């Protein structure tokens, strides 16, 4: 269904369907819905802030596409996914050097050791949700 490039990793492009993001979008919907405090249930959600590591197999565009589908007819319908992409940072266990990976080469550029620790890049986290407010600062009701 979807053929998209994998953010910034050049030619290393997994080709596949949008299925994967569908499951993840459903998890996001579940967690975000459950995070709305009782008095605010049914309020309109303006945005959801996410952290997505470049080492996860998640393509932001596909995720937004899927989220729009699964959130239809829920209070989260129309919520914008604000995605912060997290670079892949590694540290060499041999020489302690730290660097940002720009492609799938997992050995140390300084000493060529393959013993690395991945410090970031595998995140797939929900950070926060933002409730829509009217001019008086009151939460706006959602559609469903």
């Amino acid at each position, binding site marked *: 269904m979807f053929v998209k490039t994998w953010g910034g990793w050049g030619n*290393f*492009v*997994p080709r*596949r*369907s949008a*299925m*994967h993001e*569908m*499951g*993840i979008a459903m*998890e*996001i919907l*579940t*967690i*975000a819905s459950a*995070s*709305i*405090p009782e008095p*605010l249930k049914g309020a309109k959600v303006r945005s959801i802030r*996410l952290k997505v590591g470049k*080492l*996860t*197999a998640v393509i932001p565009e596909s995720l937004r596409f899927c989220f729009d589908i699964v959130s239809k007819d829920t209070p989260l319908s129309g919520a914008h996914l604000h995605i912060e992409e997290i670079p892949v940072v590694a540290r060499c266990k041999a020489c302690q050097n730290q660097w940002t990976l720009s492609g*799938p*080469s*997992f*050995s140390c550029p300084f000493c060529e*050791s*393959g*013993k690395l620790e991945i410090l970031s890049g595998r995140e*797939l*986290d*929900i*950070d*926060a*949700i*933002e*409730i829509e*407010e009217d001019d008086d*600062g009151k*939460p706006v009701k959602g559609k469903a």
Partner: protein
Amino acid sequence: MEIKVVQKVLSVNERMAEENRRLFSEKGVCVINVMSSPGSGKTAILEKTLARMAGKVPSAVIVGDVCTTHDADRLARTGVPVLQINTDAFGGDCHLAAHVVEKAAGELDLSRIQLLFVENVGNLVCPAEFDIGEDRRVVVMSVTEGEDKPLKYPVMFRTCHVTLINKTDLLPHLDYDLAKAKENVLQVHPDMPIFTVSAQTGEGMTGWVDWLKACVEEKVSGGR
């Protein structure tokens, strides 16, 4: 108004996977998650592997398939318990999630087995993200695929413990660069053990089977 959440999106799966892991440890079952692109030979390798384990290591298989039972039928002929999961019933998913494996495992008599294979859905992307509570993760690639598979799917190759390069019987007919393929595996996962096998002829299976037996022994003796 902002509401802090700070939660892993896959936390539900991760919790469930940990529960599976606890259960499998309690029962002393070594669980092997087998992943590859469609058609790399997961089922064929398992057929050959199960034949070699027969009478030595009591085994079972859980196999995920989007809608057929072909693989389950083939595996059942080896005489071990086989559970087929039609992922269609779970929304046509492209991977096995921990809760699905938990359901399937509930159908097996875990106290009678020491080795449980899970043949994941043929796909190198999604299964990489979903922990199912396994002890070891295995990725299979075959010589009919590109040598650059590891570079295209680094997450899969990094999160696995061993790579099998299958269909080596076809090497004489192809201009596949085996050395390059291994080099690419080691580029994304230095020190990863690699076994070259042919599920057709059985060539190279001994090294792989010995590796598996060592995993089972470690698990049964409560090492992990």
